[in-house]
């Protein structure tokens, strides 16, 4: 014979048919004489049946789509906090990179502002002086070619030749001419031509 404590302790095995033949006989005898345990047994059976009959709650129809969106979102927007799991998605390297880039950009901007505020000559390297170039004048030369304004220090005549409104043909200087003189380009041919004509005379 078994008591109520023993009976309740083995009740699940008893209902599931997993107790030994001897124990089953003892429990059958107990439940036949104990109305309290009989009620517990009946309740047990009913509860187990109700649990297994509960309606199944399925995933929503858009469950898989939501999951796909989350997987894509996690890859594109790395918002996981740092840690073993989220390390590969940490924002830290991105913040450092952006910060470094911003610092470089700021430094470049400051240097540029200082540079622009300097006098014009500061734009040129000391070893590469600006080459004075003639500017277009509003007037037209006798040959119909555009006139060129002179600039401070530029000769108007060289060797008797007027170079204030040279023809464009005068700009056909060659490398030999360039080598022989560092003067402005229009001077060279005129100068050499006029000098040689003086010698001939």
């Amino acid at each position, binding site marked *: 014979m078994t008591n109520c404590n023993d009976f*309740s*302790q*083995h*009740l*699940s*095995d008893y209902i599931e048919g997993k107790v030994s033949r001897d124990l089953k006989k003892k429990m059958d005898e107990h439940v036949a004489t104990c109305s309290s345990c009989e*009620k*517990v047994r009946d*309740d*047990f059976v*009913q*509860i*187990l049946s*109700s*649990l*297994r*009959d*509960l*309606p*199944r*709650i*399925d*995933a*929503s129809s858009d*469950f*898989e789509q*939501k*999951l796909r969106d*989350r*997987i894509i979102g*996690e890859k594109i927007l790395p918002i996981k906090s740092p840690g073993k*799991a989220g390390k590969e998605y940490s924002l830290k390297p991105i913040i450092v990179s952006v910060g470094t880039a911003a610092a470089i950009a700021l430094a470049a901007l400051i240097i540029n502002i200082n540079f622009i505020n300097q006098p014009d000559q500061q734009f040129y390297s000391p070893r590469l002086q600006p080459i004075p170039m003639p500017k277009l004048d509003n007037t037209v030369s006798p040959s119909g070619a555009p006139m060129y304004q002179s600039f401070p220090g530029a000769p108007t005549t060289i060797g008797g030749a007027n170079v204030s409104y040279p023809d464009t043909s005068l700009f056909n200087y060659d490398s030999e001419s360039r080598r022989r003189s560092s003067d402005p380009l229009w001077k060279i041919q005129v100068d050499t031509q006029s000098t040689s004509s003086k010698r001939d005379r």
Partner: protein
Amino acid sequence: MTSKNKNNSPTDEQLIEKFKEGNIYAYNELVRRYKDQLVNFAYRFLGDKDDAEDIVQETFLRVYKKKEAYKSVAKFSTWIYTITGNLAKTELRRRKRRKILSLSNIGYEDKDFDLKDTDSGPEELVDKVINDKIIQNAIQALPEKFKEVIIFRDIQELSYEEISSIVKIPLGTVKSRVNRGRLKLQEKLSGYLKEIKE
């Protein structure tokens, strides 16, 4: 229980290995096989459909990101139920902390685990069928360690051995907890069951 071999379809374990090799279709198949049963489990554990779906979404996300953590010595179903179970327990504890904090401010007792069903009277319990809501409330009212094994055993119908692997407690302890959990349910529901009988 959940590995599929009918009609030569691949088992769960074969699918996760395929997914590890980069086969996304294997992953999708695993999602299709498990989404409903996991949502059902999480719903019975938490009592809220939206929370249950969130937990299961997070479960599959972890499977996706941590597939390498799966070791073929364990069944895939054990692994994925462990993930969902842990997430559900974490959510439950978070809720309890939040509830304790909010109730402590107004001096109410935490009556979260009392079985209350003011909307339902005995007349609604027709032909010995226990109302789903009453059963769900009774499950919710169980202490966590009993609730977990009761859902696994009596709703999800897992074997004691598999529950033992998921919960990581000895087989004997699982059987003992299931029995004690059922007794606690019987205590909570006996009044309603009495009404049905009469």
